[in-house]
């Protein structure tokens, strides 16, 4: 799970609307019934996340539907191609969904099979929030590339390690189908390194950038 920069660049109408709600202390309309900015939020999130699931880093869409041309006058131009994007808008802290359902900092695009079935409405801890100011995967995590599992960094205190471990489970970072996809990724990557066919540029915009960074560091490759 890499750090995500959530500056809103294109869905500016949504941004203004949200700022207005905050400035005037207005209630958010119900997330479940109010759908006006759904696509603006969804595709701006996907853009921030480079088309990957915020937590597990599996691919949710191609990046070509996330470029500036897909927005007109601050709104996302929803076309047929955009239906190809999978994933759900996820409320990081489920307790905020009811009253602040459209709060930008609480929203992420997440794999469908992680959002409800795995994370659900479990309690969360900001120690593993991908857009938090102090979040850095290398500070919080280690990656065992043989067992294909994220574990808490040994540099954290035992209490922090417990909190991180709990969140690794909540966010599904090691979950079955994710591990499965990551397994092929790691295997291919290691084979390429071993056979001297690894090309960094082939991995731009690809899934699992955090696992990639950990493995490259493990192999002392810049």
């Amino acid at each position, binding site marked *: 799970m890499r750090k995500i920069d959530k500056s809103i660049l294109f869905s500016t109408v949504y941004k203004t609307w949200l700022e207005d709600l905050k400035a005037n202390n207005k209630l958010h309309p119900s997330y479940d019934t109010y759908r006006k900015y759904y696509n603006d939020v969804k595709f701006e999130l996907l853009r921030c996340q480079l088309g990957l699931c915020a937590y597990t880093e599996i691919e949710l869409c191609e990046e070509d539907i996330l470029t500036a041309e897909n927005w007109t006058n601050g709104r996302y131009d929803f076309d047929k191609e955009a239906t190809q994007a999978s994933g759900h808008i996820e409320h990081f802290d489920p307790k905020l969904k009811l009253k602040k359902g459209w709060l930008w900092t609480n929203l992420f695009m997440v794999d469908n*099979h992680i959002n409800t*079935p795995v994370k659900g409405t479990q309690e969360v801890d900001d120690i593993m929030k991908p857009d938090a100011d102090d979040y850095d995967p290398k500070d919080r995590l*280690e990656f*065992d*590339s*043989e*067992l*294909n*599992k*994220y*574990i*808490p960094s*040994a540099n954290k205190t035992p209490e922090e390690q417990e909190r991180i*471990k709990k969140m*690794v*489970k909540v966010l599904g970072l*090691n*979950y*079955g*189908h994710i*591990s*499965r996809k990551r*397994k092929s990724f*790691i*295997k291919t990557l290691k084979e390429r390194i071993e056979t001297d066919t690894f090309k960094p540029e082939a991995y731009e915009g690809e899934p699992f950038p955090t696992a990639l960074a950990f493995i490259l560091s493990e192999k002392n490759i810049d």
Partner: protein
Amino acid sequence: MFLKSIHIKNYNQFENLELDLTYPKGHAKAGEPLEKICIIGDNGTGKTTILELIKEYYNSVTNLKPIRALNLDSGVLVDANKRIIKKEDGEVAFYNTSNISGHDYFTSRGFKLLFFPTGPDLSKLHAQSSPQTGNTIRKGGVNTQTAFQGGISNTPTAFSNPPSPGVTTAYGGGKKSWQSKAYQTDKFIYDLSDGEVLLLWRDLRKQMNTSIIEELKHRDNFNTAIGELSETKIDKIHSDFKAYKRENPNGYDEFAAFLNPLLNKFHLELNPDINLRKFNEIEFIELKAKDGAVLSSEKWSTGIRQLIYTILPLYYIKSEKGLVIIDEAERSLYPNTQRNLIGIYKKACPNMQLIFATHSPILASSFEPWEVIELKFNEKGKVERKPYFKGENHVDNYHIRPMYLQWDSLFMKMFGLENDSNEVRNDMLMELAILKRDLKNSNGKDKKELQEKYEKLAEQLDWATL
């Protein structure tokens, strides 16, 4: 006359399902109908519906008179209910020019359809619940007389032809192979629901008995000959008889040779100690256990019943052409038996097109990817076939190869399982990674203890790595 394609339009969960059932380009048999097909998919995706539609399709086709109700101009066949449409292939077009009915067409070519529905009452395999003989089994079809009329009482017994006196050297070893008598009725569809297997057994028994009667004549001659010969010549006759048996196995011997390799895996065999002179009185197959116990069908396990329930009709029909449709083919069978099942069925009826529906990844792993039809709900809630190839339908373009996959991969790639194990295993793998890290970092006296913990957990996790 095998199925080459199926097109189901606006029926139940199918909106417009087109199934190509031929070998893809690049295959030695490209364009020819698949010899075996495996339908998989979640509950409710319509596996059983497709199997039943195929049966109904053939049922309606065989009931149709020539040309009438067939829309051949458009190159498709529509059944009476317009529920299933089969694209024309060379042989179906036969109806356009022939004067014979569909039913006669199929039967004249020895084409059979065996349909094994899901969930028959297998307890009815044994004789206590035996159905009436002489039934017309095909529903709604032409009133077809079955082979079972008359039953056993009309069959001459082994004693009706007493051996000629004075014959001493009847055992020259000449080959008199027992010919399996073809099923003489014009029955086309065998719906293997309750009791049907028992009827097939009776006909098979009747066929076998012909060769047994023949053998008994030789046995009687043998006995007579022994009575007249000096002791030194008995050995010669004995070995002559053995040679005769080797070259002229009776129908029951052949059946045993076919079935026993399979039964032996379960420490069973076809009961070899039967009274040949009362062969026609054997109500149903008897098995013999390794400990010598003779097991009639009510004492069989459900797995053995399931095997016999499918194998017996296949053996019965073995030389014929046609279709075998088996729903839930893996039912009650242990994984190791499932592994070999498709091979067993294929061996039993090499000339038939086999169509299975299953929930078993082990069974699915016996198929080439082009033989697998994976059904999936689309976003509209309609059922589609999940493609296993990208681009052109060519053997080189298939990205899933069931035979190459481990069981867990089969579950995940073809059976929609999201996880490769219980989630507890994933949690424990994480614990293992933490232990491994701590073990690496430790230089202290806890190292040995950590190592023991690590190795114990690793063993429990089957030493999982990538």
